[in-house]
């Protein structure tokens, strides 16, 4: 009897491990404490904090969708139903905090479709994210997760990912990934993004690469935005 149970358990685990097509939904928890206005804040900082807090609180109503096959992935923010009570500008800032647009990846080449400066762009990037995997473990739902810290010289704040090798996918929410397992939780300074459900598919999902927009490289995009900012500042 024990052997049968063990076999069933292993078979179940194996099925879960071999699944390479799935849809995962991530919920967002905003971290708001550091955006409370205090006595030391000048007028500019107070205004900025009030604006940010208003937008950050909206992120709690957003969901991030991740769909993947073995070598293909897509992720985007699900705004839910339209709500007239929400200020559209605040919502756009909230989405910018999470990661706006559509993230698509195929055969390790990443595409990020985004509308900026009134135009659509598809930013192409083949550089993988680099992480330092630690020995720290924690259980999130049914999954045992390892802690990884993003190696990012340009980043002002630390980004931590909790990934589970139990789901053999190198993906995560809004373009994050390149770890030996699906990212189950992502911690940034302002947000905790955590997987709330996942449904595995028997057959590969039909994922479409975003087509709308001018394709440019990450380096070209950065050059362009830096130029726009410096020109506008001098005007």
């Amino acid at each position: 009897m024990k052997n049968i149970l063990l076999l069933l358990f292993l078979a179940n685990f194996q099925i879960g491990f071999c699944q390479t097509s799935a849809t995962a939904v991530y919920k967002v928890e905003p971290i708001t404490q550091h955006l409370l206005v205090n006595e030391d804040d000048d007028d500019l900082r107070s205004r900025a904090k009030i604006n940010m807090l208003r937008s950050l609180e909206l992120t709690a109503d957003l969901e991030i969708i991740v769909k993947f096959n073995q070598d293909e992935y897509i992720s985007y923010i699900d705004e839910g139903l339209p709500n007239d009570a929400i200020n559209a500008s605040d919502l756009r800032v909230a989405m910018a905090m999470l990661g706006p647009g559509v993230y698509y990846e195929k055969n390790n080449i990443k595409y990020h479709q985004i509308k900026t400066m009134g135009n659509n762009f598809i930013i192409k990037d083949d550089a993988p994210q680099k992480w330092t995997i630690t020995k720290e473990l924690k259980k999130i739902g049914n999954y045992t997760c390892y802690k990884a810290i993003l190696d990012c010289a340009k980043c002002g704040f630390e980004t931590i990912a909790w990934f589970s090798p139990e789901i053999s996918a190198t993906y995560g929410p809004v373009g994050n990934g390149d770890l030996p397992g699906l990212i189950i939780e992502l911690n940034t300074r302002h947000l905790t993004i955590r997987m709330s459900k996942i449904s595995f598919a028997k057959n590969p999902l039909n994922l479409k690469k975003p087509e709308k927009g001018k394709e440019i490289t990450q380096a070209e995009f950065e050059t362009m935005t830096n130029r726009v900012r410096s020109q506008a500042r001098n005007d």
Partner: protein
Amino acid sequence: MLLAGLKKISLILNTNTMKKIILTLAIIISAAVLLNANTLTVVPFNPIPIAENVIPDAVDPPDCWAIADEEEEMYCGYVGCSFFFWEQAYCACDPWQCD
């Protein structure tokens, strides 16, 4: 005086019915005049004060560029770290520039 005048008229007309009609009309008109006089209220003339055009203290328009920079710094650590975020923060402050 009014009654005397009416009487004179009724004598001139010299009919009983006419007399009655004229008397009734005279009573009604007199009553109406008296009642009106009692209910009439005198409204003192108070000119409406001319509104003073108070000029509010000058309110500086928000420096959206500076606010967007500040928000970006708080969001990702330094000015220039996220163009997407900066753009949306700026547009939220000055939507007319982004329409």
